[in-house]
């Protein structure tokens, strides 16, 4: 399905390129697929990027480089040290700065010819329509389900294309939603997943370069929509398996029963997306299991006294390579099968990285009859903070 979205059907008669711009974009101009007409379309285009993180980084960089005339950025976060593994708009000196401040600086340096607008706010049902309205194309680079549904619905209500990209560890997805006749995000995923518990640390993580690939694909699709060239991903779901190095495509169709873009629409204004996704309150994590705990300092004191404490580490083997308390290793998933290796007569302190997985383990083992068992509160991270700063945190 070729979506030729006419975002700029009539170029303004004042639109032209300066001498500097002609030289800057010469590699575009000498291609008949872009040419002067195409570059002017880019100059007049207005694209809003939701999220200035892993996906937002290549998006911002490549759209700025391409000469998109107006780029909006929405993000309320601050650059964190752990972001630098993948958020390549930022540098070490940006840690602690608001992301939008650092991103605007970087993108303006890359291309001073363009206009960059920043919206340092959380996107909500109250502000989304107003923020999105001035833009031609919306690019979703967010990392949570409520915002994805919010952006999708707002785009459908405003009649704007939504360039979708998402990642998880080694896999990525990309598509273009919201073109006339095409599907929207809800056509594919009618409902969000139930709110996860705080994810197990061993299941999290992402290969840094993966959002670089998917974000670049999103930038490419955005540029194609502006130029009206090539075959857009509208109506297709692109799947990327980074480890297998394989791209696949699935067919997507508009769902005539879709509540927001279907033939009989029941959603005609933005709803409460946190509620839709089953999240009670913004930052309330799902209640963790409550188990007996021991503070790192207290454990240290007991070990120093010579108490016979058995330390059980429930992390994954690759985490042990990062740092260890020399505990006995049984990864959390293997606890049910291997609990017999533990001596319930001994005092056992269970730890993981931050204390969540180990809480699960303690809960399980208590129910299995272990009485002298405690969770190391805050995990090995807290041990590093309180007892031994030489232990690296991760």
């Amino acid at each position, binding site marked *: 399905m070729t979506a030729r979205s006419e975002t700029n059907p009539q170029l303004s008669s004042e639109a032209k390129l300066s001498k500097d711009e002609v030289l800057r974009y010469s590699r575009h101009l000498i291609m008949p697929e872009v040419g002067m007409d195409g570059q002017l379309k880019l100059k007049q285009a207005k694209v809003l990027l939701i999220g200035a993180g892993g996906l937002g980084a290549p998006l911002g960089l490549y759209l700025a480089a391409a000469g998109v005339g107006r780029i909006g950025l929405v993000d309320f976060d601050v650059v964190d040290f752990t972001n630098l593994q993948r958020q390549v708009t930022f540098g070490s000196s940006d840690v602690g700065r608001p992301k939008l401040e650092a991103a605007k600086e970087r993108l303006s340096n890359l291309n001073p010819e363009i206009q960059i607008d920043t919206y340092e706010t959380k996107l909500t049902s109250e502000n989304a329509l107003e923020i999105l309205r001035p833009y031609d194309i919306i690019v979703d680079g967010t990392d949570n389900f409520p915002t994805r549904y919010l952006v999708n619905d707002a785009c459908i209500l405003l009649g704007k294309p939504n360039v979708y990209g998402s990642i*998880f560890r080694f896999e990525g997805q990309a598509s273009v939603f919201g073109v006339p006749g095409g599907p929207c995000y809800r056509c594919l995923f009618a409902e969000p997943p139930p709110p996860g518990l705080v994810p197990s640390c061993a299941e999290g993580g992402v290969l840094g370069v993966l959002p670089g690939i998917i974000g670049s694909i999103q930038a490419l699709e955005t540029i194609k929509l502006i130029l009206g060239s090539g075959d857009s991903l509208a109506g297709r779901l692109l799947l990327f398996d980074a480890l297998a190095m394989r791209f696949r495509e*699935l067919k997507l169709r508009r769902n005539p029963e879709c509540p927001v873009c279907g033939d009989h629409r029941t959603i005609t204004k933005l709803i409460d997306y946190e509620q839709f996704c089953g999240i009670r309150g913004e930052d309330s994590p799902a209640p963790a299991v409550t188990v007996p705990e021991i503070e790192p300092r207290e454990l240290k004191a007991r070990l120093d006294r010579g108490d016979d404490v058995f330390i059980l580490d429930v992390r994954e083997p690759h985490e042990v390579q990062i740092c260890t308390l020399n505990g006995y290793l049984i990864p959390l998933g293997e606890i049910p099968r291997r609990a017999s290796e533990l001596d319930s007569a001994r005092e056992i302190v269970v730890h993981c990285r931050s204390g969540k997985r180990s809480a*699960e383990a303690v809960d399980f083992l208590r129910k299995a009859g272990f009485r002298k068992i405690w969770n190391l509160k805050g995990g090995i991270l807290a041990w590093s903070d309180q007892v031994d700063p030489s232990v690296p945190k991760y």
Partner: protein
Amino acid sequence: MSVKILIPTPLRPYAGKEGCVQVDARTVGEALDLLTGRFAELRKHLYADDGRLRNFVNVFVNDEDIRSLQKDNTPLKEGDIISIIPSIAGGSSTGFQPVRLE
């Protein structure tokens, strides 16, 4: 019919870490039954309590959504590829709950 079922990354921990499982089945429903029969933990992630496929999970045969075919009754041909497609949203949690020991 010998078909492959491709397991997406978020579900691999519940499918013995496999990315691809081979089964012999005549319909999509049968193939998924065989899959969840082999990997019991997968069942509660794919299916709601009422026995229906959870609706943030999509199933495709080759490149077609089974909702536009015959859903669970979609017949399979030799060599068909069944893809399970969950919604993902980056670094934040997926809908698949981490290991809860039971």
